[in-house]
């Protein structure tokens, strides 16, 4: 169960090898999380995270294979996890791909892959998870969206639009789940130094995985539906949305 201060006891992560997910999990295990299921593609990285969580105090950590674009298998994979582990208090959607922004701007295959992972994968797995949360009458679905979807920039509009789509999907899912006992939390990080952004020039308000995790866990405790990391981005992005197009296009980065 999630406790009165938002701490889950069991967690399923889709995209279990994500660095952001790992930072978040460390903190959740330090609180109440004892069962963690890591679903992802890279068995080595999953194992590494699993080993770390066990040393930190998790009691049951399982890894299993999950491919975001194989939507046909999502329902049965999710059914299997809930069937074997019982209640899952928090499901973290951490998978995502930046693609290769310069290439994807002109390459149909690359662009479709980004959309398939970030958007279609979220929609498919999101619906499967929502059904279980509704049935168990409680639980939090947390999705790692991005500020890139708030106002889509020319420099990464394929990624940005796929994040905008998944962000809108999860906001809609929240309304759909109203009254079911399930809660949907959308997290919008800014630029975070992780594997995904390795080699890229940090954008303004760049932050670290640890700081994002801190914001996320605090957001669970205080009951936020929408978590910005760092928090100041809430206001920055409100302003960015108001910029005239001509100014917006010329923003650096």
């Amino acid at each position, binding site marked *: 169960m999630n*406790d*009165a*201060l938002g701490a889950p006891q069991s967690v399923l992560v889709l995209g279990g090898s994500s660095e952001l997910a790992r930072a978040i999990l460390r903190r959740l295990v330090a609180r109440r999380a004892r069962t963690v299921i890591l679903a992802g593609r890279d068995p080595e990285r999953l194992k590494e995270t699993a080993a770390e969580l066990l040393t930190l105090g998790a009691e049951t950590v399982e890894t299993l294979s999950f491919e975001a674009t194989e939507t046909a298998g999502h329902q049965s994979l999710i059914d299997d996890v809930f069937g074997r582990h019982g209640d899952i208090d928090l499901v973290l959607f951490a998978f995502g791909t930046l693609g290769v922004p310069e290439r994807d701007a002109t390459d149909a295959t690359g662009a479709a892959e980004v959309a398939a992972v970030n958007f279609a994968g979220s929609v498919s797995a999101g619906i499967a998870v929502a059904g279980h949360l509704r049935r168990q*009458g*409680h639980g939090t679905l947390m999705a790692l969206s991005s500020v890139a979807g708030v106002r889509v920039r020319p420099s990464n509009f394929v990624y940005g639009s796929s994040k905008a789509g998944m962000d809108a999907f999860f906001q809609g899912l929240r309304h759909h789940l109203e009254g079911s*006992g399930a809660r949907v939390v959308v997290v919008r990080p800014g630029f975070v130094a992780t594997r995904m952004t390795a080699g890229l020039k940090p954008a303004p308000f760049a932050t670290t995985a640890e700081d994002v995790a801190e914001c996320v866990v605090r957001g669970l405790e*205080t009951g936020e539906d929408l978590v910005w990391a760092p928090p100041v981005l809430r206001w920055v992005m409100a302003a960015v949305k108001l910029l005239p197009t001509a100014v917006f296009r010329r923003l650096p980065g």
Partner: protein
Amino acid sequence: MGTEVLTGWGRTAPTTAEVVRPADAGSAAAMLASPGSRGVIARGLGRSYGDAAQNAGGTVVATAALDRMSWSDEAAGLLAVGGGTSLDAILRALVPRGWFVPVSPGTRWVSVGGAIAADVHGKNHHAEGSFASHVTSLTLATPAGTREVTPSDDPDLFWATAGGMGLTGIILGATLRMLPIETSRVRVVTERAADLDDVMARMSSGDAGHRYSVAWIDCLAQGRALGRSVLTRGDHARVDELPAAARQHPLRFDPSSHLSVPAFVPGLVNRTTVRLFNEGWFRKAKSHATTIEPISSFFHPLDAVRGWNRLYGPGGFVQYQFVVPLAAVDIVQTTLQRLSALRLPSFLAVLKRFGPADPGPLSFPMPGWTLALDLPARLGGLAAFLDTLDELVAGAGGRVYLAKDGRLRPDLLAHMYPRLGEWKAVRDRVDPQGVLQSDLARRLGLTLQRRAA
């Protein structure tokens, strides 16, 4: 019957359940015969603060219709009531006829079932113990059928049910030993205490002279004033103690709610409002005074404001209540120090000196100091603060109160309640299939978990 979102009085951790409202005891008991895969729990008036009366995805049996009330032996003060009967209803019916409940919590809005399931305590714990000590028998619906349980013929099940948080069955009815009273007033002695040592010394030496005793501490007082408090002690007034005008109707009882909090308030509890309130409240109290007060203002001051829990805003609040052995006064002191150092806005904390425990393995009271604090849940940082307190409390041989809890770390439970295993064995005996389930039970691992087929 319908799906409803439920929380406790603290309004944290909402979950949904099918809420059924059986019209009589027979249909309430029948709910245990054909449970869904996520089980069943009883819910009285929802005054527990955390997740005890919730059952996510399962069935919640609301007991409001089980509200019968009749004398089983009026001369002996033995009253037979339904498990859903509220203390409010009992007091309205019987105070005018010269009877009071043996133990009253800080609100009249609790059901008899809830009072037994949490084995609630009142301001008279030092003198008379907790609620279940005044219950001579109960009618308990278990998955194996309905039975009468008395402390003499099935002490294990009786005491596993007292404090058992609804997890041994649905209390359909009970017989209570009522307390005869001459008037509906209390003679109250109020004293201001300068600090924690002062109030504890007064309680240790003087509580025995009064039936009721409790102290309210100003949590924002720091340094030398740490623990400054107002101690109120009282006894049921005799007719000759009433002012002449009141002697005409010595048993008059008309509690009313004067104020009510609108459904949506932005959260009025913050450091500033709390400081102003506490300061005014402390100054108002006389340094020493004896007054005659109505039962309702002495026992249930918060009931005058309906829905006061909404003052904490949509994030809700947590009540933290612990008890530590008498020797562990330092834990009370440390708690107050940390609270004031962090400037966490708690209104008054309530301090009480408990008397001997009753035999319930999960019953909360034990000889010692109990402190209760209300804290807004949305502060941020509260989780870590309370986790540290838990360890101090458990380390000192103390425990937290499950009727208030929504966040205890599960592995500490067995330290706090060393007889947990004994309780579980009795529980599993009456409910081997794990039909009785609640969010509290899932969170703390109190019951066997049923797997969906």
